[in-house]
């Protein structure tokens, strides 16, 4: 089996190399047969990598402890659910997993477009196969997952005492979210390869128009959505598993996942400038290049043993492979751009500073400022060491201080931007659109202040959050009102109709609303409380409105772990409210102890209780209770973001559009540039998906 896996991986590598070479040859010689053969090789990579992944999973499920990777990341008693997840628990498996996800994307892209875009697809195939080749090089020659344990020694006995049972999966990863979180994040990381491949392909092939943006719009949104879900699941895992009452620590790996998400968000916004106005072509291409390179950087920071500290930067051998790949990617991108930069010349015009266009410019400015601040803080210790020769620390408070004002400004733009018209917005329209939402925001601020929401940033966040929500609501109501007046339907039916007519726009609003919820959830942070107390049976502690009474301590045992458990009764305002069971689990295979937090979650606040173990001084059990306001809004906001993305991915309901294609854009725009507009509209209808 290990031979089959290794062989499949080697064949996949050869197929990928062939796809690159034959693809380039096909493009140069213009021979369809070569191009087709390159495409088929690209799709074959998927089958071959899938076989390799299947083999590795087979070893996990049959407890074949002759494979080093299986010994290190599994054990016999590990539940099947986690055996599956053990695939990405270590370096070799993660990189194989990356390869596999990329091959899935590449297969889908090549297969779905096999009869379309004959000029563009060969280039796309070459770029995707190029990325695939890099990862398969790592899989085959640098970090192979199929390494077999050293064979029998002179006496014929296998050494390594633990081999028959395996070391077990890191207990920290034995949590349901850990099964979903890495795949989501990796689907995000790998997914950005698709818009990258199309952008580079369009540039290399001088493919006309904004078509690559239309083709990749859905792919980008899907990758972005996976990335968002991955980040939030990671935050939730850190919250529910680590037992420190927080969800985001600004550590290098978390930052690494945030960076491509930020530039990806900027890209999703700025492409609209190119689609609608033909502006910012160079910018968009570089934004998607940057996003991809940040994905590779993120994978590198996560996967090169840099996990705990950035200071190990240059010491890991796999890191240098990634650095090499990053340099090659940059050189290729820059060369392609330099050679074909005239093709990106765009007709940039700005009619007014108060317009949708300029709001997008500021959106991109702010997002990139946030991206830079995070990247700078993450890499500054390395820089400082280079320059001064001494390390320094850049901790969470730094990132909070720098990023909170930036994030609040972004929230403001979320409210203002979508309501500005393309080209020009009059002062009257501004007043009409913003007066009520702004008044509503201020009112919420006053109420919040009275209701002890007294932290300047949190208060600002609340005001802006309500402001944005009201602008979104007013957009829905205004549109729905016109439809209901005309069709006589009720306002909610009209709202559905409105949304389905332009899913991208209204789905976007739903995503914005989800982001507002997340921001509100984060704004609760300054009001966190916590209390740590030694507690015997019958003792109690008070936190906020809750009194926690210790009822019992007991001991549980199963094949995978032993557990010490506290039984706590929680009283609220004198009445028994709930029971909580925080645990400490000792995992047998790895002999590592982990806490299992008990969380009672409500929209207003979470009661979060950790059984910290026996105090090293007195030997008595210690309970650590946290009161964390508004946390639940973050997870709920995440769900709204996913729903909004799903909505934006749906095709528009087009009945009206067929009859009156010209109404697709504002009549004022059409009038302003009648003759060219016909062409523009025609182009857009054609590229409309």
């Amino acid at each position, binding site marked *: 089996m290990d031979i089959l896996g290794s062989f499949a991986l080697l064949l996949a590598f050869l197929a990928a190399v062939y796809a690159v070479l034959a693809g380039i040859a096909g493009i140069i010689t213009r021979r369809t047969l070569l191009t087709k053969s390159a495409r088929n090789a690209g799709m074959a990579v998927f089958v071959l990598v899938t076989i390799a992944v299947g083999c590795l999973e087979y070893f996990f499920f049959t407890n074949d402890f002759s494979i080093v990777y299986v010994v290190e990341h599994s054990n016999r008693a590990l539940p099947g659910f986690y055996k599956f997840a053990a695939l990405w628990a270590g370096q070799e498996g993660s990189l194989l997993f990356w390869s596999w996800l990329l091959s899935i994307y590449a297969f889908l892209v090549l297969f779905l477009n096999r009869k379309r875009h004959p000029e563009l697809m060969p280039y796309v195939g070459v770029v995707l196969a190029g990325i695939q080749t890099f990862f398969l090089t790592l899989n085959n020659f640098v970090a192979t997952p199929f390494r077999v344990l050293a064979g029998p020694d002179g006496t014929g006995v296998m050494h390594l005492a633990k081999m028959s049972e395996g070391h077990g999966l890191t207990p920290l990863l034995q949590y349901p979210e850990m099964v979903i979180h890495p795949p989501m994040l990796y689907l995000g990381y790998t997914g950005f390869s698709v818009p990258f491949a199309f952008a580079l392909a369009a540039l290399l092939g001088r493919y006309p128009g904004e078509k690559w943006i239309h083709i990749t719009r859905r792919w980008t949104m899907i990758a972005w959505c996976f990335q968002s879900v991955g980040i939030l699941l990671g935050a939730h895992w850190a919250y529910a598993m680590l037992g420190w009452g927080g969800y985001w620590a600004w550590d290098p790996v978390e930052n690494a996942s945030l960076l491509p998400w930020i530039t990806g968000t900027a890209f999703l916004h700025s492409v609209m400038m190119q689609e609608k106005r033909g502006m910012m072509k160079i910018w968009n291409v570089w934004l998607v290049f940057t996003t991809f390179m940040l994905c590779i950087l993120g994978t590198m920071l996560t996967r090169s043993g840099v996990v705990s500290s950035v200071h190990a930067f240059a010491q890991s051998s796999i890191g240098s492979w990634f650095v090499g790949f990053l340099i090659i990617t940059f050189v290729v991108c820059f060369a392609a751009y330099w050679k074909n930069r005239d093709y990106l010349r765009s007709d940039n015009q700005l009619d007014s500073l108060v317009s949708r266009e300029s709001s997008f410019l500021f959106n991109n400015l702010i997002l990139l400022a946030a991206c830079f601040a995070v990247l700078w803080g993450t890499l500054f210790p390395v820089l400082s060491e280079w320059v001064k020769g001494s390390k320094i620390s850049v901790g969470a408070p730094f990132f909070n201080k720098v990023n909170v004002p930036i994030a609040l400004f972004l929230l403001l733009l979320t409210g203002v931007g979508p309501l500005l018209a393309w080209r020009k917005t009059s002062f009257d329209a501004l007043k009409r659109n913003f007066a009520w939402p702004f008044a509503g925001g201020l009112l919420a601020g006053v109420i919040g202040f009275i209701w002890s929401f007294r932290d300047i940033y949190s208060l600002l966040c609340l005001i802006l959050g309500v402001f944005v929500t009201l602008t979104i609501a007013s957009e829905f109501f205004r549109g729905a009102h016109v439809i209901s007046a005309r069709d006589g339907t009720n306002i909610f039916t009209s709202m559905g109709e409105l949304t389905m007519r332009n899913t991208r726009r209204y789905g976007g609003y739903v995503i914005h609303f989800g982001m507002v919820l997340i921001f509100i959830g984060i704004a609760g942070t300054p009001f966190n409380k916590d209390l740590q107390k030694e507690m015997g049976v019958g003792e109690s502690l008070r936190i906020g409105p809750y009194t926690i009474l210790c009822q019992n301590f007991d001991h549980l045992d199963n094949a995978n772990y032993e557990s010490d458990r506290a039984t706590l009764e929680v009283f609220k305002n004198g009445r028994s409210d709930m029971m909580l069971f925080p645990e400490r689990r000792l995992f047998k295979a790895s002999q590592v102890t982990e806490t299992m937090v008990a969380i009672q979650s409500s929209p207003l606040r979470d009661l979060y209780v950790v059984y910290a173990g026996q105090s090293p001084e007195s030997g008595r059990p210690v309970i650590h209770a946290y009161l964390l306001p508004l946390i639940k809004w973050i997870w709920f906001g995440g769900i709204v973001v996913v729903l909004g993305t799903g909505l934006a991915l749906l095709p528009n309901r087009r009945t009206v559009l067929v009859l*009156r294609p010209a109404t697709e854009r504002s009549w004022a725009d059409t009038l302003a540039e009648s003759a060219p507009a016909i062409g523009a509209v025609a182009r857009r209808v054609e590229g409309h998906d």
Partner: protein
Amino acid sequence: MTKFPNSRTTERAPHQSLCPQSRFSVSSVLRFSLRAVTLATILAISAAQPAKAQDTPRGKALGKRVLCRCGGCEDSAGLCNHPGGTFSGPCETARGMQKDLDAHVTRGESDDQILQAMVEQYGPTVLVEPPKKGFDLLAWIMPIAVPLIALVLVWEVVRRWRHNATLAPAGGPQVSAEFLARARQEANREPGLEHDE
């Protein structure tokens, strides 16, 4: 960075300089921005104070500004919380550091003096944030300076694009009044289709 008058108003401003007489000079624009950020932070801290004043002694606040040196955690001494392990709470090192901090506080030293003492004892990595002097000041300046430079660039771009717009005024064939009226009517009738596809 010189001390600003407004940073004296509160003892606990985390932005307070560790080195009152620094040789490092910054341009007035950057100084202004730093001042704005400092002011905002002080506002934030002082606004947060009423809620926390009773249960947060100075020592605990200082504990959050130095890193635990046990080597096994990435937390500050005040928040050290080894998840897993034999005890999920502040480790011996963190408790020791916290005791030291409290001792310094009872001796009546200022925050700056105390943090300086910690740096002398444990080296510069003990500080959670980069110090605001010398080369490390760059850590703070760049996240403000780069967006400001970018803003200037965006402004320049906007100016050029507006220039383009005046050079090539939107024109095209003449439109009849009747067509205009119909267009207005249509535009009012089709919500959801005004801006986007």
